[in-house]
């Protein structure tokens, strides 16, 4: 065997050995890997089985819980339903009880109302009886007076007859004597005696009440609680409390566009002791009255006006201790005066026409000619007449517009309805318009017009503060200084009244009227911080919410409200902001992100001063960091002028120095 063969054999043996070794290792590794995979598979299967078991258990648990919940909700529903039924039963019982109480109350009220009506009827009856009795007495007196007069006349006639007879007898006797003397005396003396015996008629005494006094017209409504003059509106409403009070319903007529009647309403009187709101029962059913002023409730629109005006309206209300009754006496004629005299707009019913004032008149159709004649007698130019074809005019009625009487007319028969169209001659002052602040006080610059109604005699004089007043174009009286600030005395005829004009104090205050929880409140056109600090308000882009001031530490982050997407926002800042920087991720690539200059202010000169003054290092750090960061990102400026860029560089320099000092 050659060495070469031996070497070859050894190599072959080694190769075979290594091959066998490698193969064994590979088989072992394969077996191990397979075992591992098998273990993993088993583990995964176990895990899955475990999870599945958990899930199933959870499902079972959920189902159990759900069943329990359903059971509970069912029980609760049953309980709720039972409770509801019980509550309903209780409520029903309560309702029945309340209804029974209400019914009893209603019956009691009806009874009380019936009693009060009976009482009122009895009163009316008693009044009527009294009136009848008075009338009978008056008639009896009149009859007696007539009889007395006749007796007196007879007596006078008898006496006269007797006297005449006596005189005749005396005359005859004298004539006989004279005849006897004549026969004895001469003819001349006989003629003189005859001249001295001429009979003179007896003097008649002047008859009393030869010309009857004009009767006083009494409107069917109760007496007014307020005087006509605006200056006396308040005083007139003060009345002595009584247990039963009759009040007035005034008719209010408001014209609309195009001359139509916009509304016909009833304005109920109010007195001091009456509540602000009150329920009344009347021919129109139940009505709720709300107060308008101390002397008046808000006007209520009149339903079925045609009949209501003719037949009258009566409302009854009831307070704690008193009964109130409002009455509008039914009639065929209503005179309506300018409402500003009563503090109401439109025209408001009044007792009779006022001289030299513009009125409206509502009259039943049948009175047309009589009304026109009466108005002509009162010196009214021919009025415009509208009938029910004009919207708002009640059926069966006529509306006379622009009725301005210029002549006083004496009243006639006491019961003549047309007396309301006969203006009185009495002179009354009227303070019309202006801005009234108090009862007799008006705002300087807005005085009332001073007018008079009535018949002005030739010597009628008006003085204001001792200066003679003269009527101007609109009929109002003016005198030198009549509209100056202060108190004025108006004198007319034998009467005097005062009025005042005053200026207003301008100390109006700001207050947080509307606070929506944003730290600021709105009052009028103002928006102010709630703490009263006078912060600055700036409008900044919604993207630039970081505001930088001129001094280090002046930094403010604006808040944006959720759900509101706006281009710009208003921020209220405790310092003067110079720069508005973006708060989002800064990047030069985003061309929309820019630094905005709000106000051109140089940065604080020395950082040291700022640091000494400020204790808040953190704010200074943020101030410096924000500027340095924006500069480092090379953000563009919204306005790229040289001046602005230079300012931005100076801020960068200050921020850099400050950053080094604070580091």
């Amino acid at each position: 065997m050659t060495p070469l063969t031996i070497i070859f054999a050894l190599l072959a043996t080694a190769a075979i050995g290594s091959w066998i070794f490698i193969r064994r290792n590979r088989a072992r590794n394969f077996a191990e890997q397979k075992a591992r995979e098998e273990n993993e598979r088993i583990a995964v299967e176990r895990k899955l089985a475990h999870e599945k078991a958990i899930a199933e258990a959870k499902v079972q648990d959920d189902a159990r819980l759900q069943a329990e919940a359903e059971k509970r909700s069912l029980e609760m529903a049953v309980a709720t339903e039972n409770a509801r039924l019980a509550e309903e039963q209780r409520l029903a019982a309560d309702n029945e009880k309340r209804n029974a109480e209400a019914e009893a109350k209603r019956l009691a009220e009806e009874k009380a109302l019936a009693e009060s009506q009976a009482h009122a009827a009895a009163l009316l009856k008693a009044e009527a009886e009294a009136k009848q009795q008075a009338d009978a007495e008056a008639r009896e007196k009149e009859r007696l007076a007539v009889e007395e007069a006749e007796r007196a006349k007879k007596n006078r006639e008898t006496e006269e007859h007797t006297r005449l007879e006596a005189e005749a007898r005396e005359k005859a006797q004298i004539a006989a004597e004279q005849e006897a003397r004549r026969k004895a005396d001469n003819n001349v003396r006989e003629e003189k005696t005859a001249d001295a015996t001429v009979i003179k008629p007896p003097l008649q005494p002047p008859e009393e009440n030869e010309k009857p006094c004009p009767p006083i017209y009494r409107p069917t409504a109760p007496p007014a609680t307020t005087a006509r003059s605006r200056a006396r509106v308040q005083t007139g409403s003060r009345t002595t409390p009584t247990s039963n009070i009759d009040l007035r319903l005034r008719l209010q007529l408001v014209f609309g566009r195009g001359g139509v009647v916009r509304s016909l309403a009833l304005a109920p009187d109010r007195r001091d002791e009456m509540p602000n709101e009150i329920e009344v029962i009347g021919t129109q059913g139940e009505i709720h009255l709300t107060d308008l002023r101390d002397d008046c409730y808000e006007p209520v629109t009149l339903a079925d006006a045609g009949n209501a005006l003719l037949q009258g309206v009566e409302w009854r209300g009831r307070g704690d201790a008193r009964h109130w009754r409002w009455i509008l006496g039914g009639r065929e004629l209503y005179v309506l005066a300018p409402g500003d005299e009563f503090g109401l707009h439109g025209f408001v019913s009044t007792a009779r026409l006022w001289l030299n004032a513009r009125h409206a008149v509502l009259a039943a159709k049948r009175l047309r000619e009589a009304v026109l004649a009466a108005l002509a007698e009162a010196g009214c130019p021919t009025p415009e007449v509208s009938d029910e074809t004009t919207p708002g005019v009640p059926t069966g009625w006529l509306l006379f517009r622009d009725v301005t009487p210029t002549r006083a007319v004496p009243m006639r028969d006491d019961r003549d309805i047309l007396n309301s169209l006969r203006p009185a001659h009495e002179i009354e002052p009227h303070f019309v318009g202006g801005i009234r602040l108090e009862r007799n006080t008006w705002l300087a610059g807005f005085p009332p017009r001073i007018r008079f109604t009535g018949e002005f005699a030739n010597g009628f004089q008006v003085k204001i503060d001792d200066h003679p007043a003269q009527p101007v174009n609109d009929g109002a009286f003016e005198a030198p200084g009549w509209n100056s600030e202060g108190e004025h005395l108006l004198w007319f005829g034998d009467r005097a009244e005062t009025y005042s004009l005053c200026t207003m104090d301008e100390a109006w205050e700001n207050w947080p009227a509307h606070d929506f929880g944003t730290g600021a409140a709105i009052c009028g056109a103002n928006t102010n911080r709630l703490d009263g600090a006078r912060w600055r308000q700036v409008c900044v882009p919604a993207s630039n919410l970081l505001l930088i001031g001129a001094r280090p530490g002046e930094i403010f982050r604006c808040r944006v409200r959720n759900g509101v997407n706006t281009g710009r926002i208003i921020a209220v800042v405790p310092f003067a902001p110079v720069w508005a920087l973006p708060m989002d991720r800064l990047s030069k690539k985003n061309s929309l992100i820019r630094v905005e200059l709000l106000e051109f202010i140089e940065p604080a000169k020395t950082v040291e001063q700022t640091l000494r003054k400020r204790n808040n290092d953190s704010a200074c750090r943020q101030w410096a960091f924000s500027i340095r960061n924006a500069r480092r990102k090379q953000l563009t400026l919204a306005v790229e002028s040289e001046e602005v860029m230079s300012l931005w560089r100076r801020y960068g320099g200050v921020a850099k120095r400050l950053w080094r000092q604070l580091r």
Partner: protein
Amino acid sequence: MLFWLSARREGSWRQFRAAAEEIHSTDNDFEANEAFRTGDDEFGLHQRLRLDLECLAHVEFFASSCEEGWRVTPPTLAVHPMPIGFRAILCGARSPALRERVIRAGQTLGCETFDSLDVPDVIRFIANDISALSEIASQAGIRFQLNAPFAMLSHIPPCDPPTSRRTQSEFPVGKDWRIREFDSVTFGWRTANRQRAQTADTGLFEFQLYDRWNYFLRWAGRTFKLPRAVALYIRLSHHRDLLRYDTQTRTLSLPGSCRPPRMLERALVLCSGFPPSFDPATVRLTYTDVPHEIARFAAELLHQPLA
């Protein structure tokens, strides 16, 4: 009326009603004009005056410190930017002397005075420089409010639906209440009953008794008492074609029955100084001179798209 309010400073609702009645008693055409303007005959004279005075920022009604009545606001020059320059509107209390002072101080600028039957005189100034307007306020001794409409909108809460945490409300008890439901299609009110109100999943209901109006929003089966306008805009959330904006005329219009919340309307009115005009033909309210930015902001607060 504004002089009377300014002289009295504050008072009750009853005093306001009586004053409105008395001061306008000399003008018989006022009511007719008002009814024509608003197209709403049921609305009382004093209510219309209240709305106008309130949206013009002259007087606050039923706000804090005047819960039962009114209080006049301090005189303010409300400024807002225009396409060119700035415009200022005189708001708040006013005396004859103050009015003269303001007009005299702004003589050099473009002063516009509009006499109107319906509202107090509208006094406006236009300037290129805001400092000129600030100077007027300073000379007249009144307040100065920059970006008034925008500032107001920035502090008004949006008309968000009530959250689940919000306390529910109860409907008022009693048979006398008149109940109506808002129809989101016709923007009108139709008669409803208590059962409908209690069972509706979503809806807006009005309960009225005499001069008391209560508004209840049914939202997800729950009941919430809210201001009318807020409840209405929650109900009409994201309604198409409710708000219309004309970029040419800078006008914003919306249905007459859908007046926005009080403060939001004030912001819109302060853009021009005039209350909205009502067009009976389209039955819509139109606010003039409203910048697009303001209109967009208002639409966002109302949760409405701007058509």
